[in-house]
């Protein structure tokens, strides 16, 4: 039995989670120049955002970064999940521990340690440093996503492939990967959103030559509230939402 009191309470919590986002989306379509008076429906702020060259350049940079980082992290993360599932090796516990640490440690701790590394190695702060950092914080999430799919999977299929004369690589390439493909795709999408959402790590490892969208938005909204940002934020919410729903459907499809 779910009482009305419970339903009311749940509605309040959902309202708390969604109200600010909905208000922001509402303002994005507001024709008025002032943020706080309603001037009718309009797409002018979307137009203003799309015509802002700096914003669009930063958006392009962010999308490229998210695609490259998600792809890199998916390759490393998937191989790691397969290794953790298939093989016994020394230091397996330590590797698990390291992945767990990366997932749990506050972003800022990882951010400064990577900055120190790049300065020491003389890696130019910009695209390369951003890609390497984003791959690093995405890997554990992809390992978890792919591993959870592997752990409820019938190993007899792999034995069959071996009996038919596959070597380790052929078995992985032609049997294992096709079966876990939905989980791999879901992992990629999670990596993509994680990369697009990151503020903390990027603040530290970016350079003046490569500006990305979250940092551009951050510097814009620190000084005041800008209507173009509402429109851009609405577009970003839409992209995250689509990526999340796609990954959700993929995981569902994979487990059924």
């Amino acid at each position, binding site marked *: 039995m*779910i009482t009305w009191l*419970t339903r009311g*309470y*749940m509605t309040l*919590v959902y309202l*708390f*989670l969604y*109200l*600010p*986002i909905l*208000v*922001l989306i509402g*303002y994005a379509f507001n024709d008025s120049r002032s*943020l*706080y008076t309603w001037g009718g429906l309009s797409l002018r702020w979307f137009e203003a955002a799309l015509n802002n060259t700096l914003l669009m350049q930063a958006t392009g940079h962010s999308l490229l970064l998210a695609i490259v980082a998600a792809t890199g992290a998916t390759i*490393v993360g998937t*191989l*790691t999940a*397969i*290794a953790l599932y*298939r*093989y016994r*090796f020394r230091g397996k516990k330590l*590797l698990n521990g*390291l992945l767990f640490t990366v997932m*749990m*440690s*506050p*972003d*800022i*701790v*990882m951010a*400064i*340690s*990577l*900055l*120190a*590394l790049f300065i020491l190695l003389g890696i130019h702060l910009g695209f390369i440093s951003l890609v390497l*950092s984003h791959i690093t914080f995405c*890997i554990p999430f992809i390992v978890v996503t792919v591993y959870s799919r592997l752990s409820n999977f019938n190993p007899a299929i792999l034995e069959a492939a071996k009996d038919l004369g596959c*070597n*380790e*690589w052929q078995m992985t390439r032609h049997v294992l990967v096709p079966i876990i493909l939905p989980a791999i795709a879901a992992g990629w999408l999670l990596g993509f959103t994680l990369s697009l*959402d990151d*503020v*903390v790590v990027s*603040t*530290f490892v970016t350079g003046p030559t490569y500006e990305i969208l*979250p940092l551009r938005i*951050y510097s814009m*909204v620190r000084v005041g*509230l800008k209507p173009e*940002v*509402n429109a851009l*934020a609405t577009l*970003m*919410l839409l992209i995250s*939402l689509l990526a*999340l729903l796609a990954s*959700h459907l993929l995981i569902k499809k994979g487990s059924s």
Partner: protein
Amino acid sequence: MLHFFQRPRSPFKTGVLVLIWGWMLTFVLLPNVMIIFTSVMTRGDSHFIEWQLTLDNYIRVFDPLYLQVFISSLWMAVITTLICLIIGYPFAFAISRFPAHVKPFLMLLVIIPFWTNSLVRTYALKVLLATKGLLNQSLLSLGLIDTPLRMLYTEGAVILGLVYVLLPFMILPLYAVFDQLNYNYIEAAQDLGASKIKTFWHLVIPLTMPGIIAGSLLVLLPAMGMFYIADLLGGAKHLLIGNLIKNQFLDARDWPFGATASIFLTSAMAILLYAYWRSIKLMKQQVNV
């Protein structure tokens, strides 16, 4: 060594292990070791650090100026965690009581904010809380207040922002334990005449403890580092440890001290994770007995 040669080594396996170990050593282990080194060095002018051993940075952390930031940041994080627990506990329980076909949808509604950009969500909260924002306008037109309230740039605003961004991190692990809670125990306790309060206190709380601890850690740890929330909602006044570390690294250019502050944050995390691990172990022993 014999078994080593009996099985043919697969080049694929070797390649994968070299790749992941190489990556983790280069981008996780090595950078953190470097931070520990940096924390015992002296600040340098031309380069970021000078190779001179010192423990000054560890003493400076206890300077009242910085200690105050640490304490107020910890205080805000603890309050945030408690609020998230008070809101999230009954909420996660309520979701777990819904029929199986509705539950995934209700949880998806919690996960959506979890995966959307937290900077954008913080900004949305700022828009709502502004002096001329919707919240003040509504309160004014309802006649509840006469003059707009100053809600932004207060400690309350920072805590609200942290709760807003981190609440899903509390709900997810709590839901996981409630969803697997064995209600037979609770029915048995009530059949044996335990009151509702007694059942809750002696049975439900201990059984859901792993979720309570996991959720609290997932809220408490990031709550000390998310500098942009304090920056956007608290102005320059209500700093988190994250703001302190960022200022030392990017503005004051005092890397050794920034590294030390970060080590304090990591140590706090390590202690809490250890406590978590111990309590899970103890809990398992109790259940087995």
